[in-house]
């Protein structure tokens, strides 16, 4: 397999973009990534998206976005893996370049969720879970609330203890011009937020929003054609678990997180101690805790302590959500995996401004679908 690197990044601000179509957002992020790379063309597009068929009633995004970008004729496919579609698309792009099929590809993550009835969006998001769960009125938040309640019971955590995750995310988003919520969050606001799926509140949860992000991947040989020294992708690993929570023997141990992180460490020849920053999938505060645990940064049940101790802050031992994460930068679901990649590249280029993790050389990013049924983990290095 050939070495693969990222030579271009692009993103649109995350927000509520009623006057911009799915194609507009995707093409804007692609243009900006190609411009960043100094690339005139690419050989294929991989597009991560979850909800276009349900919310926009538009499928066939491969052709749609190639067409909108003026790239008629180009190989272009949509990759779907629930809310982890972005991580899945990145994985497929990496495989294509590593296998020698293409020398240069663009991977785009795009999602439009705002402006639709909230119940419709929640029903659409719930399709990342099992039909046997949705049939009882469970939402994606509801699934993660079931995990959180049991976690609090097993390890004696209180709801307040999770505040540090959301507060950290909002603090880092203040200086990210592409973030949806550029304001700090107080403990009092966190405490008084309304319940979405008890014990999960609005401020444990990532927002409904729109956005697109893109990266240009190339082989090591092709890298000399581009402006930037490549950020190397030293691991790209995907794993799955049962779709339904009720089919797992331990809902507090996300096996696919563990499996994909373990495989990624193996590919890169790294361990958790080597990771300088971790863009994890904080769709809900509990998800961040479980991701830290199953990825090897904390003992089972102790992920919350890393947040409380400040280990997850920019100057901590394992910074997470360095540009606001899914909680505060925003979580346009199929695009989030690409936002993570873009942000990790900014960190590794030492181009993160006020959000810079000093001396960052190795970053890990992770996308999680549903209640942990699909996970994609990548390690990026300079």
């Amino acid at each position: 397999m050939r070495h693969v690197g990222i030579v271009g990044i692009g993103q649109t601000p995350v927000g509520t973009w009623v006057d911009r179509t799915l194609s507009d957002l995707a093409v804007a992020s692609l243009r900006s990534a190609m411009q960043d790379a100094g690339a005139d063309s690419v050989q294929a597009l991989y597009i991560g998206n979850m909800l276009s068929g349900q919310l926009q009633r538009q499928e066939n995004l491969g052709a749609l976005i190639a067409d909108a970008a003026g790239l008629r004729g180009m190989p272009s496919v949509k990759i779907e893996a629930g809310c982890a579609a972005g991580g899945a698309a990145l994985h497929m792009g990496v495989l294509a370049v590593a296998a020698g099929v293409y020398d240069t590809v663009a991977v785009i993550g795009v999602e439009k969720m705002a402006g639709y009835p909230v119940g419709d969006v929640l029903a659409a998001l719930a399709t990342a879970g099992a039909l046997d769960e949705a049939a009882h009125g469970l939402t994606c938040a509801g699934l993660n609330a079931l995990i959180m309640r049991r976690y609090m019971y097993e390890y004696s955590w209180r709801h307040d203890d999770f505040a540090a995750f959301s507060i950290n995310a909002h603090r880092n988003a203040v200086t990210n011009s592409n973030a949806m919520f550029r304001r700090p969050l107080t403990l009092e606001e966190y405490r008084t937020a309304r319940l979405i799926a008890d014990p999960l509140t609005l401020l444990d949860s990532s927002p409904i929003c729109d956005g697109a992000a893109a990266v240009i991947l190339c082989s090591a040989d092709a890298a000399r054609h581009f402006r930037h020294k490549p950020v190397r992708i030293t691991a790209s690993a995907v794993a799955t678990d049962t779709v339904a929570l009720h089919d797992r023997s331990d809902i507090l141990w996300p096996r696919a997180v563990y499996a994909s992180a373990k495989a990624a460490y193996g590919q890169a020849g790294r361990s958790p101690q080597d990771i300088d920053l971790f863009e994890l999938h904080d769709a809900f505060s509990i998800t961040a805790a479980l991701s830290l645990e199953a990825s090897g940064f904390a003992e089972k049940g102790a992920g919350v302590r890393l947040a409380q101790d400040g280990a997850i802050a920019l100057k901590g031992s394992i910074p997470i959500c360095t540009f606001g994460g899914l909680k505060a930068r925003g979580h346009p679901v199929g695009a989030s995996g690409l936002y993570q990649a873009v942000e990790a590249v900014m960190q590794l280029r030492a181009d993160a401004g006020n959000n810079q993790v000093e001396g960052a050389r190795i970053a890990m990013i992770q996308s999680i679908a549903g209640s942990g049924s699909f996970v994609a983990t990548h390690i990026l290095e300079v």
Partner: protein
Amino acid sequence: MGKVHGWMIVSFCQSCCEMFYPRRDVCPSCGSRNLDDQTVSGKGDVYSYTVIHEPPTTFEGEAPYVVALVHLIEGAYVTAQLRDVDLATIFIGMPLEAVMESGKAMAFRPRLCLVE
């Protein structure tokens, strides 16, 4: 309450002894195809639960409602709503029994226990 019964049919894996509901053809735990139907009591307790305040469109007007992960005494975990229950009284470990009513989604309700 019409046609109500409490028993359920689950899949029992002969290879790893795990149980699943709804039924499965292949064991999600060990991959075995050696699964049998087994009738179980429908009795269990609350393993975890959530109160849904923001429902999907199909459940609009029903919130708040409780969805629980129920641990059957025979071993399987089941996702279902709780009914006939005061939200403030639910706790992890609360004894439950299944309510299977024709034409409705399976649900659970609190089960009265004899104190031994």
